[in-house]
């Protein structure tokens, strides 16, 4: 019996474990997750804008896993690739034949000077704090930016600017709120082909923007955010996405690059130097592509297919072509859909009601279709 260990119970790890439980009958599949809770992260922004309750975006991982998957609520502290074993925080050691690392990224607010002066919505707790601050916001300037690159879900900051516009329009106080978006790039949206459409949305909604603003520090006393490029912008309420890093155990195991991400083949998703035994998916890789659930979703299927082939004693043939598909909510019941891969950037999307509906449907049906790889 081959032993497959999956680290991380997010969207990627859960799909890998479930597909293997179905397709690799000759494997024992163990998934290690430190909380045993599965979080639907696209829901964070809706918690902040009072459209979803936090309990709706968290479920027990056990309920999302097939029965054949063993769930260990524990945390990897070190991988020993020579011995093919994972050392866990509890002291247990899990031997493996095949290892899949899907531990995502972690927020590192502590490394951003002055971050106590900022809000964000990248955890249920932070989203609730932002919800409370917005609820009592009397009016003034709200500044949105990011504290480092890369960060999860590249469209999320621009999406939150649009949702702020909608939020204050609903509360009949849009005229009292200035929304100022500070983009780290030379355009407002990370994907060039989509940028003109998003810039037009910003201009139509009266969202002010500054480009090439890479936030470096916050001065919470004077309420000013400073950039790497030498600019300073005052705010009344600041939303700054904290810096992101990969999991510490991967760094401690010597598996990461200088930025803390795992060097990974972008087609086979094998960890470089450990081909045939370790794979990495989702945020944790160094692949220059969106760190997003949609990426992990499509990568997970490729890795599961290939590991299932190896378990059956067959050569793996699946390749990841960079496919990502996601919906972005532009507020006022309108949205856009983005579909792309390594070779094909997204075509400029028309703003439409159907993509907003697509996002709302995904928010509801995620639990039934995505973790069990039904989509």
């Amino acid at each position, binding site marked *: 019996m081959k032993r497959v260990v999956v680290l991380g119970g997010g969207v990627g790890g859960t799909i890998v474990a479930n597909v293997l439980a179905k397709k690799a009958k000759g494997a024992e599949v163990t998934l290690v997750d430190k909380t045993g809770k599965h979080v639907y992260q696209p829901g964070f922004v809706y918690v902040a804008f009072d459209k979803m309750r936090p309990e709706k975006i968290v479920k027990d991982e056990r309920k999302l896993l097939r029965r054949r998957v063993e769930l260990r609520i524990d945390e990897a502290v070190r991988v020993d690739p020579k011995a093919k074993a994972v050392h866990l925080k509890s002291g247990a050691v899990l031997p493996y034949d095949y290892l899949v690392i899907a531990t995502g990224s972690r927020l590192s607010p502590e490394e951003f000077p002055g971050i106590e002066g900022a809000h964000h919505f990248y955890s249920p707790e932070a989203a609730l704090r932002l919800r409370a601050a917005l609820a009592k916001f009397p009016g003034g300037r709200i500044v949105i930016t990011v504290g*480092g*690159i*890369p960060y999860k879900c*590249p469209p999320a900051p621009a999406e939150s600017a649009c949702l702020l516009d909608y939020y204050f329009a609903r509360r009949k106080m849009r005229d009292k709120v200035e929304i100022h978006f500070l983009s*780290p*790039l*030379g355009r407002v949206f*990370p*994907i*060039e*082909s989509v940028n003109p459409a998003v810039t037009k949305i910003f201009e139509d909604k009266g969202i002010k923007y500054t480009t*090439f603003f*890479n936030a470096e520090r916050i001065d919470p006393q004077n309420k000013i955010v400073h950039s*790497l*490029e*030498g600019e300073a912008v005052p705010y009344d309420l600041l939303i700054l996405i904290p810096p992101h890093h990969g999991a510490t155990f991967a760094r401690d195991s010597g598996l990461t690059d*200088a*930025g803390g991400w795992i060097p990974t083949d*972008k087609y086979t998703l094998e960890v470089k130097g450990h081909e045939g035994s370790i794979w990495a998916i989702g945020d944790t890789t160094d692949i*220059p*592509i*969106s760190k997003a659930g949609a990426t992990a979703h499509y990568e997970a299927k490729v890795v599961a297919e290939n590991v299932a082939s190896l378990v059956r004693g067959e050569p793996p043939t699946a390749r990841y072509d*960079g496919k*990502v598909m996601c919906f972005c909510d532009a507020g006022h019941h309108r949205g856009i859909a983005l579909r*792309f891969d*390594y*070779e094909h*950037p*997204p075509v400029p999307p028309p703003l439409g009601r159907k993509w907003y509906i697509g996002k709302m449907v995904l928010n509801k049906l995620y639990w039934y279709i995505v973790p069990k790889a039904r989509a």
Partner: protein
Amino acid sequence: MAAEEVKVTRVVDARGSVCPGPLMALIGAVREQKVGDVIAVYSGDTGSRTDIPLWIKKAGHEMIGVRDRTGYAEFVVRKTR
């Protein structure tokens, strides 16, 4: 100094990247490397030819040069502050 003569400290291969893009990969590397280090970014994205020099100018770093390769360009940048 010509781009061919400098010793590259770190290579960032961002070919095939459409999102978040070669510039984001470069900015991430600039944050992580030390002042004086030389970073080479490989990009097949035509937008990089505008984006990268514009950002380097605004951020006050040094663009050592751009090398044309088959199917992509290599941008060589020194972190100066």
